């Protein structure tokens, strides 16, 4: 078995260059946990891997739990964008769930504040 493990490593490691990994959130605008002085008209999320558009979603909700995004997000490569309704001052919760091109799903959530 020791030889098997060593042999597997030697064979497999060079093949890694063609791989794709999980898509994790790289940065967001508005930034994660930030406070912005004026209401953004759009939320953009940038991920560490390219996304499958049909299976990647994002929701933005206000403190009462009501949706404040414009609906279906636009996905291009590793970016996901969604329009926002006019946001009064307050705290907003973002929940995203994406499928990377290697078919792994990841999800996460964060908040940002407007006008406080």
């Amino acid at each position, binding site marked *: 078995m020791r030889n098997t493990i060593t042999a597997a490593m030697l064979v497999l490691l060079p093949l890694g260059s063609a791989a794709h990994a999980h898509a994790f959130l790289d940065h967001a605008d508005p*930034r994660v*946990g930030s406070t912005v002085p004026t209401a953004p008209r759009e939320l953009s999320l940038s991920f560490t891997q390219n996304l499958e558009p049909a299976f990647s979603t994002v929701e933005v909700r206000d403190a009462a739990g009501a949706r404040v995004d414009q609906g279906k997000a636009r996905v291009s490569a590793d970016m996901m964008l969604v329009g926002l309704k006019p946001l009064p001052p307050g705290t907003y919760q973002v929940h995203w769930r994406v499928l990377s091109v290697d078919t792994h799903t990841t999800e996460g959530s964060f908040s940002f504040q407007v006008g406080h």
Partner: protein
Amino acid sequence: MPRLILRALSLATFSALLPVSDALAHCIVGGRFFPATLTVDDPCVADEMSFPTLQLNSANPSGRENDIEADFSKTITQDFGVTVSSTWTRVSPPANAGTAGPVGYGFQNFETTPQFQLLKDPEHEVALLAGLIVDWGNTGAAGVGATPWSTITPTFYFGKGFGDLPNSTGFVRAFAVTGQVGYQVPTTSFDPVAGSPVPQNLVWGGSLQYSLPYLKSNVIDLGLPDFINHLIPLVEAQFSAPVENNFGNQFVITGTVNPGVIWVGSYYQIGVEAIIPINRSSGTSIGALAQLHFYLDDIFPSTLGQPLLGGKPQTTAMAGR
């Protein structure tokens, strides 16, 4: 309209064929990623490989010991996997008095661990896992302490991230804990060479980790350098106590506390820790631990990174969620 129907059918077909792999990943539960910890196991079945894991001057009360370890984990189904482990040891003086020379070296007993995923709760970042660690007797070298008898350890593993705490708790939400507890049963009760009973042991351990990747993507993006945003500082600890068949021996809890840090990349992680014995029965000096760990599910997402059986059962329609 026909184009819409065709598009819907295409989407449905794509959805049906897609190997959506929520449960296949290395240990991701909701927004929480539990890294492969160096001392205790993470609470998930996974396709991953650690090589090498180097222990320099590892905890050994009777001498100096260095280890090189390899671990390979493979999912059989989405919730069931097996880990095989092998460790090469160099110890001075040899563990077995009958070993020639001042240094003993060779392989420890071969180890296998079937594991079953009991729970993954994304909302509360909780993972539960059950495993059976089998140390196969007489497969290693007596000179490094490998026993002629086997040891079976039913083990329970858990992980909990604190991301479900209220937003007002802020930075605390990036903390997570993992742990494991097992009951070690040897297949013999008496060691005829040493002339002493072989005790049954309670073995337990855990980790307290602070995830800077989680802080950046789920709590607050502080604009830290990219390298820092990939770090998970942590403290691990492992302990063992004889609880049965310990006649004539002193009751002593042994263990180590291992502070360190893990750098997490897309395809691999690198971890380093210090090994601090909790008492002289656990070791006489501080050692070091380093590990290179590969995420096979990311390196080979459609082959080796898939379960052997049932790798494409999920057809979760995520669109519209």
